């Protein structure tokens, strides 16, 4: 299926909702993912992450709201969306009697990829995910990690423009996790694939993603860059400059144009200088200023809340806010009349 090249790789949703009788799986979700983003989608279990991904891939119809993937409406154009996206679900099943190569060729055929191209692509992908030497072994003999790699290869068989990954490294050993992360970064950098990554591994999201959305109970808690979220959570994002203590150190520090806090450590030998929020200069400029002031830098590190801290702070804050503002509306379904039409 040919897709117009004018379509970009973005994802946008507007008040997207999915209700199952009296359960709001996704509730008025509005997010934007720009082309080329590696977008982290975070939330506790049951937050609606998988449901959102399934709606965006055209596997589920929304109850209300709308969304576009690569410029295509998820309801009207689900067939077009399916031909240009790839989804690696949390747990995939496989046709265990097939070999990895047969499996990939089967999916290549379903995507109507020319046999010759399909064979070459399957071979390249098996090489890429490290299964080339086991390509003729029945899948039933594969370990979980190998199956996950094969799942990733299947997800890439149609050369997707947008990749949805639902817990891609769940249950994998550190090497397996690292390999998948490396493959994702390569795809994003070399092929400009937009990646929508749902994960509980916050360190993974933190190291891979340039933008993040946090959802809880089907609702958006926050979205933005990790720095934006850190700021939203009220976390500091300055620098800690550890300097050697000297009789004149305090005086020299007071000449710096920053709001600083100091703390002496290591038997008064060192001083930790926290250069607080609002510092717009680069770390190099800050180091320059310290050196010009005659301070001897021992070490320097970025100070700030981890993504984990941000995540817990924001989800807890949102939970409290919801309980205060809508104590009666917790997970209560709207009546059919109240629900917005799908394409408002």
């Amino acid at each position, binding site marked *: *299926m040919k897709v117009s090249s004018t379509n970009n790789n973005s994802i946008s949703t507007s008040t997207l909702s999915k209700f*199952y009788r009296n359960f709001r*799986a996704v509730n008025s979700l509005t997010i934007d993912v720009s082309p080329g983003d590696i977008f982290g989608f975070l939330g506790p279990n049951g937050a609606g992450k*998988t*449901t959102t991904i*399934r709606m965006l*891939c055209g*596997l*589920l*119809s929304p109850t209300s709201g709308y969304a576009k993937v690569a410029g295509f409406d998820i309801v009207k154009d689900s*067939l*077009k969306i*399916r*031909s240009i*996206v*790839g*989804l690696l*679900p949390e*747990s*995939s*099943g*496989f*046709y265990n*009697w097939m070999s990895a190569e047969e499996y990939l060729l*089967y*999916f290549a*055929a*379903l*995507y*109507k990829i020319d046999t010759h191209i399909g064979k070459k692509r399957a071979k390249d992908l098996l090489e890429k995910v490290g299964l080339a030497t086991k390509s003729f072994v029945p899948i039933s003999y594969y370990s979980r990690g190998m199956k996950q790699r094969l799942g990733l290869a*299947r997800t890439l068989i149609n050369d997707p423009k947008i990749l949805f990954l639902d817990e891609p490294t769940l249950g994998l050993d550190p090497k397996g996790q690292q390999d998948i992360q490396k493959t994702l970064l390569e795809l994003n950098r070399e092929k400009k694939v937009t990646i929508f990554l749902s994960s509980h591994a916050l360190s993974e999201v933190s190291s891979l993603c340039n933008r993040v959305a946090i959802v809880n109970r089907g609702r958006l808690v926050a979205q933005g860059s990790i720095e934006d979220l850190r700021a939203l959570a009220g976390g500091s994002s300055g620098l800690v400059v550890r300097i050697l203590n000297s009789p004149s150190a305090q005086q020299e520090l007071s000449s710096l144009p920053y709001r600083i806090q100091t703390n002496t450590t290591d038997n008064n030998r060192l001083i930790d200088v926290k250069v607080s929020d609002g510092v717009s200069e680069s770390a190099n400029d800050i180091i320059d200023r310290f050196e010009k002031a005659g301070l001897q830098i021992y070490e320097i590190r970025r100070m700030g809340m981890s993504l984990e801290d941000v995540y817990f702070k924001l989800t807890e804050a949102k939970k409290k806010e919801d309980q205060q503002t809508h104590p009666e509306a917790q997970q209560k379904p709207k009546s059919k009349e109240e629900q917005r039409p799908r394409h408002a």
Partner: protein
Amino acid sequence: MLEIYQREFSGSFYSWRGGVWIVAAALIFSMVAYLLLTDKELSLLDQGEMLFTLAEVIIALGVVMSATSASSSISGEIESGTFESLLLTPVTHRQIAMQKLLSVLTVWAILYLVSIPYLVVVASGTHLALSAVLYVGLYGTLLVTGLSLISIAISARLKSSKSSIMTTLMIVLILLAPSLFFATSLKKTDFGLALESINPVSQSFNSLDSVLVDNEQALSLQVDHIWPVVVFVLACLLVFVFFTRQFEVKSAE
């Protein structure tokens, strides 16, 4: 175009189980044919009646095999986690369901081909062989198609192999019971007659009885029996179309 059909078919027959089904069916046909031709009491039956009994066995086995196979065709994929990846491909949901139907019908086609020599042997010495082969083919195909259509619809709707196999077998049992298990006296009551008139399996068996035992082989003489079976297939088609227009895999699954 027919990738899912090919994969279904190779999946069914790749393992030894696929082949065993056909061997088991052949053994059943052999046993029935052997008993009909050699057993002291059964061999006293008129040859048309022997042929009719074998035809009943072939159709009943075909219906049970294809309905069981169809009833797990979608739910089985949902349970094994392969359905989501299938739905992600640019193949329409209707195409997926149709190819699965085709795969089930192929199983019936193989079973039918295996049964032909048995029909010919039991009919040897009479002029009934061709009629037996054609009418078993006609009614078998119609019944298998109808029940496969409804079984796939049930499989898509219930999303659980256990529930869909049980439901399908219940339907098959309800359809087969009047012909196979009801006493003749019960069949002749008003209730029995009403039930027979709307039961496609009873209509098929009555028609086969008329062709093979009563020697009414012309198609025109069987129209009254054929149309209820065709109506049944059309009703099953409607159910199939309705339940396979859109598959959804919920998060909880």
